[in-house]
């Protein structure tokens, strides 16, 4: 619960600042100054303190009316399954016969299971390989494609093709590219006298290769969010900066980056979650030895899948899923704290 309390104030911080910045430059005073003190943007209007209780009730009613449909969907079809997975993790269940309650035995077993911790390590490596490159690349692309160049729309479409392509099929194509014998990559490298590298069969290169495909498929997609975020930054801020003689780089770091913070927050949180759950790419690129060679690409989600559907051990698979959940929760809270801290620092 504490986690949630912390976040309540946390998350409003970057957005609040962004909003203040946006209005502060153009209008005078009247902007969102209230947001800072009441702890959230779009806080209840400042007039009429008399009816505060009534207003709060009304806001709560309005709030629940608006989130109502999604609440039904999320609770019944997304949250309930998550809770049930938590419950299943306390059982021994092979999916086919009746489950048996075994308390925390699955977790105790997990604590000593080297293969699970190996998977945790592999997953962290994958995330470290993908997230920084993918995010920087996406931001760079968004900035470059946020111009009024001719053909920019077509270029944007080209960059998101990897994300729109059928994953099963792309896994196959990437195997052709990374193929040690006849692969496109080795053919290309042979021009420089290199070649004959078994990318996907090497324990040291398999994970980076899979990560490269992950970056390839997500960079353009992530770009879309930055592109939308960039459109939300008012043009006049840049004009004012140019009048003041700010360089392109200065404009980027002083205006673009701070105002993209809400977008950046979203992108980082969601792509970390996505990367931690990578499955399709690894699955299609490492058949028939799933997660191979020698478990070099055995990411957590693959481990969960094989445990549940090939080893018929859903209780244990659920426990591993809960471990993944715990890791992601910690990382998300850490990101929330980081974004708050950065903001406070810059403000102070």
């Amino acid at each position: 619960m504490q986690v949630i309390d912390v976040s309540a104030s946390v998350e409003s911080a970057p957005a609040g600042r962004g909003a203040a910045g946006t209005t502060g430059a153009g209008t005078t005073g009247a902007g969102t100054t209230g947001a800072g003190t009441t702890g959230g943007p779009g806080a209840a209007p400042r007039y009429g303190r008399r009816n505060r209780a009534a207003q709060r009730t009304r806001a709560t009613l309005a709030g629940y009316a608006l989130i109502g449909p999604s609440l039904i969907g999320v609770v019944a079809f997304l949250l309930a399954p998550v809770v049930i997975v938590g419950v299943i993790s306390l059982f021994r269940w092979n999916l086919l016969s009746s489950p048996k309650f075994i308390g925390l035995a699955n977790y105790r077993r997990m604590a000593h299971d080297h293969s699970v911790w190996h998977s945790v390590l592999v997953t962290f490596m994958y995330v470290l390989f993908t997230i920084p490159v993918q995010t920087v690349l996406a931001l760079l692309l968004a900035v470059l494609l946020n111009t009024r160049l001719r053909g920019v729309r077509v270029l944007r479409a080209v960059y998101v093709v990897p994300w729109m392509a059928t994953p099963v099929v792309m896994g196959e194509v990437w195997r052709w590219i990374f193929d040690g014998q006849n692969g496109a990559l080795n053919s290309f490298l042979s021009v420089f006298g290199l070649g004959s590298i078994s990318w996907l069969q090497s324990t040291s290169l398999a994970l980076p290769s899979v990560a490269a495909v992950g970056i390839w498929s997500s960079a353009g997609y992530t770009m879309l969010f930055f592109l939308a975020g960039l459109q939300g930054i008012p043009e006049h801020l840049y004009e004012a900066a140019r009048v003041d003689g700010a360089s392109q780089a200065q404009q980027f770091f002083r205006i673009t980056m701070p105002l993209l913070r809400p977008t950046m927050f979203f992108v980082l949180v969601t792509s970390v979650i996505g990367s931690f759950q990578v499955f399709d790419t690894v699955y299609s690129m490492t058949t028939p030895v799933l997660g191979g060679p020698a478990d070099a690409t055995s990411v957590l989600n693959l481990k969960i899948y094989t445990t549940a559907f090939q080893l018929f051990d859903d209780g244990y698979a659920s426990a591993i899923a809960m471990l993944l959940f715990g890791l992601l929760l910690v990382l998300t809270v850490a990101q929330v704290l980081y974004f708050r801290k950065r903001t406070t620092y810059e403000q102070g």
Partner: protein
Amino acid sequence: MGMNRRQLLAAAPAAALAAAGLAGCGNSSGGDNGGAVVFRIWDEEQQPGYQKSINAFMAANPKIKVRLESLPYAQYWTKIITESAAGTGADVFWDTVPYFPQLVKQGVIENLDPLIQKDSYDLSPYYPQVTSAYTYQNHHYGIPADFGLASMVYNKDMCAKAGVTLPAELTWAPDGSGTLLPILQKLTVDANGRHPTDPGFDPKHVKQWGFMAENHDQTQYISWIPENGGNFMTAPFGKFAFNQPAALAALQWQVDLINKWHVAPPPSAGNAIDLFNRGQVGLYPAVNALLLYVVAKGNFTVGVTNLPAGPKGRVVNVNGLSFALNAHSKNKTAAWELIKWLGSPQSQQIMSSGGYVWPANKSLSGGYLDYWKNKGQDLQPFVDAAAGASVPMPITPVWNAASLTITNSFQTMFEGQAPVKQTVDNLVTQLNQLIDQNG
């Protein structure tokens, strides 16, 4: 079941499980499906054939409506297992040897013996190896659907170019004697045109291999081991035994083909079928169902020949799918009628003459053989193998887990990065522990 359920409810968090219907399996929900039966397979290629068969069935049984479903293979079992967890699922479905032990032990599929006895259903027309593969504690849990076995496909053009004529009988022995190895050495060529027997042969840059020593159970080590007098398992539902000397020597032979004689590509060279179709491999042990994916797929003529025979002769893995009856089916009477039809000579004849499958009914393979004869393939080697000595796939409830582990460890072993004895000893110990825990 009742006992387990009480235990379950005793535990506080189990309420959530019960709410989700986890505890109450199957029989609670009634509802008559009015003669509707779902039949599930995973092969798009066979779907038209089965549809034809089912149409004939529905014409003869207007009260039963059959829906045929074809799923992607990669998700077939994921779906069946998820449905079984919820006590639902297709009434009739394809069952395989690797999944059979789990399904039968957990009560997912129905014991057919009462129905077989009631209708005096005759099981003698089927290949006995298939019938017995779906037997558990002397009861039948599936009606044989088709028949599959291994022989060898080869690149005729490559052999002609190398001046190689395959003898009627290829032989091998762990020490490298026999007629197979010299032929493979002739077919294998490195980037400079040298053969493995030539001085200066470069095993790192081979352009063309004589053989495919794939990391694959059914077509490779499941045969090599008995052909050298070893056993993969002690018995169906028994223990793993491929760490015995004869089995070890057979596995060493497969490793040697790759790393000592250099006549077969290591696993890292790529997918077996792709290498063969690109014309980079001469001889390729394959099951008959693979013909569909190799004949006329590359720029060369494909031939069929016998698997090489070992010191103990030729021992071929035979296999087959069966039609299983879902224990959760709400319409078992109609489902059984459908299964009987699918096993009948009429239906198996439809599948055979269309070239879809080699049927499980022994007397009906003619249509299938003719189909391939028309495509220029004489399947006599498969027919010979079917009449010879055979070995089943390992039958154990832990096979899915085990085969994953074996494939993983063997990959390193075939790559030449781990010694055979150590790999196998570790594996057998580990897998037999798994059997003790889950058996």
